[in-house]
């Protein structure tokens, strides 16, 4: 009886307490949902701003207001750049500062009531914002470092050849002034004749490197290039053991073909320095509308062969990772294809060059 009376008297209280608890629960759920929405919007905004914190932070300032964060302030330094918004001087702030060798971040928020559950909500948003800023900076530093590194590799790649050509010209000028007598004259011409193939390969390489990433030059004149002959010449130039077989020519720019096959054959030459005695074989054949060139060496297989054409990827300690990327870039630009694989007989390059594309171009030029 007593229990029943107690339950009857507490009934209303239980109902009110339950209702209050529900209201609180819904309120907390509302706050949490709002915080998650702000987080997601910040992630989207960061992406829209292309991960540029100078663009992202003003947007983030607006977004956080939804979660009752009145203001954000920051002082960020990275890669010679500074992004700053001064602190407003109010009492309710949350601030965090980190200093790393390449960057420093000082981020703060001004909150309306920094107590209780609301404080956890602020912290969730604050930490997300901090993480996004740090991620953007790290990404920017990484991209900049990689670009600088790659630029430096390209620079080194070109500089070696340009310096040699310049030195050659200096030598040539010096020698021309000093040729005395027919014997020396004859000898000089012999040297020049001997120099021509190497000089031609080097200048072609410089030209093709400078053309990486440039639009196709439709005005460039095509000539009939004997690919089989070119490969034989490169075999001779680099003292490659093996055999260059087949026949085939196509109308194209000679310097581009020199660069493509020079890079493949030079790769074999470098390999033969590490693996003495390896041989190299090539074949040139015509297929419907294309010229197919297969070049393979008898050396060891290459690890991660699928990455061989990746720009700036190299397995050699001193390699720059430009040559094969450049070769495939040229072939693709001509509408062809270039592949490499480890086969039972060795590392095999297959270059497929269309014959028709440039023929059309010549026809068009002739009209």
């Amino acid at each position, binding site marked *: 009886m007593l229990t029943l009376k107690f339950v009857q008297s507490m009934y209303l209280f239980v109902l009110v307490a339950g209702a209050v608890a529900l209201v609180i629960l819904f309120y907390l759920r509302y706050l949490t949902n709002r915080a998650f929405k702000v987080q997601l919007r910040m992630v989207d905004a960061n992406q829209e701003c292309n991960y540029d914190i100078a663009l992202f932070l003003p947007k983030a300032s607006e977004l956080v207001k939804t979660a009752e964060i009145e203001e954000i302030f920051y002082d960020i330094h990275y890669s010679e750049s500074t992004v700053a918004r001064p602190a407003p001087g109010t009492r309710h702030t949350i601030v965090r500062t980190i200093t790393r060798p390449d960057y420093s971040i000082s981020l703060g928020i001004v909150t309306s009531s920094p107590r209780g559950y609301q404080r956890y909500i602020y912290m969730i948003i604050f930490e997300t914002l901090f993480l996004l800023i740090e991620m953007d900076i790290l990404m920017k530093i990484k991209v900049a470092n990689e670009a600088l590194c790659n630029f430096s590799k390209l620079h*080194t*790649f070109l*500089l*070696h050849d340009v*310096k*040699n050509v*310049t*030195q*050659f*010209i*200096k*030598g*040539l000028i*010096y*020698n021309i002034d*000093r040729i005395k007598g027919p014997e*020396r004259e004859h*000898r*000089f011409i012999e*040297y*020049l004749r*001997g*120099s*021509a*193939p*190497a*000089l031609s390969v*080097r200048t072609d390489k410089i030209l093709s490197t400078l053309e990486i990433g440039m639009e196709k030059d439709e005005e460039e004149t095509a000539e009939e290039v004997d690919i089989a002959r070119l490969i034989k010449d490169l075999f001779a*130039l680099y003292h490659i053991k093996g055999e260059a077989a087949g026949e085939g020519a196509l109308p194209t720019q000679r310097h581009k073909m020199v660069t493509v096959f020079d890079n493949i054959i030079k790769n074999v*030459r*470098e390999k033969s*320095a*590490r693996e003495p005695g390896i041989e190299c074989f090539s074949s040139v054949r015509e297929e419907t509308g294309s010229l197919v060139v297969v070049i393979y060496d008898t050396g060891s297989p290459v690890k991660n062969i699928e990455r061989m054409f990746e720009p700036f990827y190299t397995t*050699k*300690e*001193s*390699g*720059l990772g430009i040559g094969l990327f450049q070769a495939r870039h040229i072939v693709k630009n001509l509408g062809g294809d270039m592949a490499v694989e480890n086969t039972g007989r060795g590392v095999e390059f297959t270059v497929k060059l269309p014959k028709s594309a440039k023929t059309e171009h010549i026809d068009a030029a002739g009209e």
Partner: protein
Amino acid sequence: METILLTEDDAALRGQIRFALEERFEVREAENVLKAVHVLNSENITLAVLDLGLPPHEDTPEEGLRLLHYILENFGIKVIILTGQKTETAALESIKSGAFDYLVKPVSMEQLMFSIDRAILFRDTEQELSKQGTAKVSFGIEVGKGLQPAREEAEKNVILTVLKNTNFNVYKSAKLLGVKRESLYYFIKKFGFKREDIDADS
């Protein structure tokens, strides 16, 4: 007549330098380290002009530096570096190793000729001084660590040079150095010189 070893991987450039040099000198060519070593061991080379960027690593100085060390350790001839490698490290390493000159491409041929003439002059003068009993000893020290390490390094190098020249004959070496044999034994023990090491070096 001087016989110059020209090590350069670029055939066209090698031809031009060769043409310029062969007016006054005998010239032997090498396009890589292996060929250069072969020429050095089969011919009486008196001076070397060396490119640092050699195959298979044309874009770094490592192959050239390897050859430089080999030449200096085994032949003791003057080496002029003619390279496109403008890195401070390569220049520092070359000079530290004992290269006579470091020329960065592109350089005028007059400059190269001038450098060769100076190298010949230095070598001849050193040989003349050596005949008179004055040996040129070079060594590297860290300035700022006091004079004691420099003194020890100088002593070590002088004794080593004389021991090498006398084929580790302690009696002759002591006489040449003007010290007692006991003192020379003391230095040999102090610096840890061994006959087999010196024989292997020479």
